[in-house]
């Protein structure tokens, strides 16, 4: 017997049982079956929903047989859920109890006065006609709230086959919406036999109205639980894909303000894509068959404008892929998506259409994969996408504990690396032997090579995947007050950029385990772990120097005395280029374009005002310094690398200006050009009103054995570095090490300075602090 037949048969049996008790007790009501029972879909332990129709309030004498009727039904083992109403009451909207109206959509006569039932059967459709839009709107709201309650995802490890998104309740919603709209424009997906069969099993297995497909139940229902669950998710995905567009359609007809907004969003349409009701449609679906980059552009468009694909678009992409349409699977095509603020929308579109598996064949290892872990709530693929989504929503957080991580997110240089690492961090959970982090690395390496990801991206992504458990483990098992812990983490991550990336990856990974996994406790611990490693890495700038022992003599000549950090932050090719530069007549410089910015490397004999010259020359050209670092080697050569943006596009629009900039920097370095005079010619940049960033200048005498650490946080502006360096030089300070960083409008500057070869005296600190604060304004 098929599951549909089984539940219909159970419904028939209950009909007979109810009729018999009705006959026996003769209550003066008309009996109708409603809800699931009304549809003749009665699962073994489901509630039996009854409507007891009356003409008017029952007298005490009339109530007795009704009570007896219900008591006997309960005693016979039925879980009765009854409502007693007049036909008029059935045709009213009851605030807060829409369920009653909805249950009446599936009513059928059982016993009692037939005329009374016929009255209802006649009045109810008229009531529906008048109220259908309102009821449909309420139904959509209830459905959205239910979806949100369960994270709007079907990929729960232990799903509730009735209530969760993609479950039976969504099938009911489709059925009700079609009744309300008097149409079948959104036909339910293929017969829900699989879900029916599963729910019947769950009821019988636990001998109660249990709809939770727990790990135990998954093992009881199938010898191959993993394969069974994949089948479950496919079925739920089909239902969810049908119900969401149906909700969209109904909501669009209801709310004029929402519709107006959605029409307005239609303005982002392009020659390739149109936007209707917040969904992306294709203007030329044929392109999918011929243009390998069409899908990339489509998902980038969705992610850029925070939109989802229309159901029709998803279907077309799926069909095109099934028919062998080409998909560009290289890094150049994926990267633009990964740097967008809402990249998850694009990634989800890739996953839903099957394109993600074409780009990353290893994705199929974790597609709908259930890993038995009591703390995890989602399948591995869903956990992965949730992690990226959590990272993206971090930008909007107002929680002070999370705000600190949001600040880190705005500081990182490689959002694409972080998202790629998240995308691949658990890819090894699908198989292989050993720790999943190492299996993930083994799979991710070749995947990145196939995509032709640049070497720097590959090494950073693999580093993050390999170490993605490290911070979680440190924060729960190591003494964070022990300096050795900070040293160990600092040693492992190597650079501040990697520390930030790993901290954010850990934040997202823990948060995506389940909605309450990232507790304030864990937020504090993770932040404390970040701080001890950060402090170690900034301290190390000054203290740990490169030991030339065992190096090539010519390289040792150049590298000796630089902080160890230098080796970790520069590729071998860069180090060789710097080495070549150092062998030229000094001062020497190198200027090239790096991504959206420019980078200048200068090597000169150590002189206190070098940074003043270079930063001043750049400010004179209107350039904005984003990052800078300067180190001295044992030969007293100063190597400074400055990354700057060109806000007025001077170098791009006037290529000869690059030569003039080069010349100006060299002349200032050689002392042939006065920087102060150069800057005078330039209009002073307008400072932002009521600077949002509070200036802070802090001195630390303990961070280094021989220099004073000055940390400065200020509103960034062109010429700031010049002003700071000029102030330090003007007070007789020598800059030993400098590390400059900017995040949006905030400049974060770290200087290690000496005066007369020693740490700063307290009196000089006081004087300098005031001057530096003045220079920041």
């Amino acid at each position, binding site marked *: 017997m098929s599951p549909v037949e089984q539940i219909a048969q159970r419904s028939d049996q209950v009909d007979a049982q109810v009729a018999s008790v009705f006959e026996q007790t003769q209550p003066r009501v008309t009996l109708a079956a409603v809800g699931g029972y009304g549809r003749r879909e009665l699962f073994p332990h489901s509630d039996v929903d009854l409507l007891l129709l009356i003409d008017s309030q029952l007298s005490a004498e009339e109530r007795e047989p009704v009570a007896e009727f219900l008591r006997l039904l309960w005693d016979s083992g039925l879980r009765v859920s009854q409502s007693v109403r007049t036909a008029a009451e059935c045709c009213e909207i009851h605030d807060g109890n829409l369920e009653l109206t909805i249950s009446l959509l599936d009513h059928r006569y059982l016993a009692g006065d037939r005329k009374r039932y016929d009255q209802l059967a006649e009045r109810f459709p008229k009531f529906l006609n008048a109220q259908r839009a309102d009821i449909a709107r309420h139904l959509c709201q209830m459905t959205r709230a239910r979806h949100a309650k369960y994270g709007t995802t079907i990929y729960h490890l232990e799903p509730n086959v009735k209530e969760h998104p993609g479950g039976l309740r969504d099938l009911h919603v489709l059925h009700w919406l079609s009744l309300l709209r008097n149409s079948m424009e959104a036909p339910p997906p293929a017969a829900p036999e699989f879900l029916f069969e599963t729910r019947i099993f769950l009821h019988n297995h636990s001998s109660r109205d249990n709809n939770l497909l727990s790990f135990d139940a998954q093992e009881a229902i199938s010898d191959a639980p993993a394969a069974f669950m994949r089948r479950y998710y496919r079925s739920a995905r089909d239902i969810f894909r049908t119900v969401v567009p149906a909700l969209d359609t109904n909501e669009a007809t209801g709310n004029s303000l929402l519709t107006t907004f959605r029409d307005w969003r239609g303005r982002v349409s392009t020659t390739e894509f149109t936007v209707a009701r917040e969904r992306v449609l294709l203007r030329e679906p044929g392109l999918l068959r011929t243009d390998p980059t069409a899908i990339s552009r489509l998902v980038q468009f969705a992610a850029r404008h925070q939109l989802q694909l229309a159901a029709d678009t998803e279907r077309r992409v799926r069909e095109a892929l099934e028919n062998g349409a080409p998909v560009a699977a290289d890094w150049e095509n994926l990267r633009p998506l990964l740097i967008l603020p809402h990249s998850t929308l694009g990634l989800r579109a890739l996953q839903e259409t099957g394109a993600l598996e074409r780009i990353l064949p290893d994705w199929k290892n974790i597609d709908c994969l259930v890993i038995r872990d009591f703390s995890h709530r989602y399948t591995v693929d869903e956990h992965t996408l949730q992690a990226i989504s959590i990272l993206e929503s971090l930008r909007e957080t107002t929680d002070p504990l999370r705000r600190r991580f949001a600040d880190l997110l705005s500081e990182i240089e490689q959002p694409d690396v972080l998202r790629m690492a998240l995308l691949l961090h658990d890819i090894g959970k699908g198989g292989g032997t050993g720790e999943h982090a190492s299996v993930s690395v083994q799979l991710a390496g070749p995947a990145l090579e196939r995509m032709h990801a640049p070497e720097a991206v590959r090494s950073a992504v693999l580093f993050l995947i390999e170490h993605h458990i490290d911070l979680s483990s440190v924060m729960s098992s190591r003494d964070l007050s022990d300096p050795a812990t900070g040293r160990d983490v600092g040693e492992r991550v190597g650079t501040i950029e990697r520390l930030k990336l790993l901290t954010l990856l850990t934040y997202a990974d823990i948060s995506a385990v389940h909605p309450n996994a990232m507790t*304030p406790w864990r937020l504090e611990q993770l932040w404390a772990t970040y701080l001890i490693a950060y402090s170690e890495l900034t301290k190390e700038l000054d203290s740990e120097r490169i030991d030339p022992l065992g190096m090539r003599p010519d390289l040792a000549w150049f590298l000796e005395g630089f902080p160890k950090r230098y080796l970790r932050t520069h590729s071998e090719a860069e180090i060789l280029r710097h080495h070549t530069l150092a062998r030229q007549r000094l001062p020497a410089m190198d200027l090239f374009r790096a991504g959206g910015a420019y980078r200048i490397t200068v090597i000169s004999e150590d002189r206190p005002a070098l940074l003043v010259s270079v930063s001043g020359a750049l400010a004179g050209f209107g350039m904005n310094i984003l990052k800078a670092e300067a180190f001295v080697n044992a030969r007293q050569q100063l190597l400074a690398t400055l990354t700057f943006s060109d806000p007025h596009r001077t170098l791009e629009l006037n290529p000869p200006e690059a030569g003039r900039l080069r010349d100006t920097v060299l002349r200032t370095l050689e002392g042939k050009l006065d920087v102060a005079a150069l800057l005078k010619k330039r209009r002073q940049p307008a400072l932002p009103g009521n600077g949002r960033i509070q200036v802070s*200048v802090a001195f630390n005498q303990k961070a280094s054995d021989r220099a004073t650490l000055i940390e400065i946080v200020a509103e960034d502006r062109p010429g700031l570095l010049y002003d700071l360096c000029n102030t330090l030089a003007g007070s007789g300070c020598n800059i030993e090490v400098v590390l400059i960083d900017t995040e949006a409008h905030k400049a974060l500057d770290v200087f290690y300075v000496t005066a007369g070869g020693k740490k700063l005296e307290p009196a000089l600190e006081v004087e300098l602090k005031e001057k530096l604060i003045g220079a920041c304004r």
Partner: protein
Amino acid sequence: MKKIEAVIQPHKLEEVREALKNIGIDGMTITEVRGHGRQKGHKEIYRGMEYHVDLLPKIKIETVVADSRSEEVIQAIAGSARSGKIGDGKIFVFEVADAVRIRNEDRGEGAL
């Protein structure tokens, strides 16, 4: 019976569990908590900005044992959780009136 509640440094959890296991105590409740004792949090300096960490992450271990074993358990926890530094935590001992095993309604020490 005594209920022993210990608030310890998070990284000491494994050592304390091992010490309790070695004396045959397997049942316990572990909670991630935040709070402060006399040390009242501490100051952190990050990028020159000073901020106060009021509530420090700690781990709370709760276990109920027979009166005769309470001293032994206290010693095991104190010995394994001690680093000698401020913030090592505290142990609190309470009298327990009764214990009930829900499954079969065993009472008193038999329910432990």
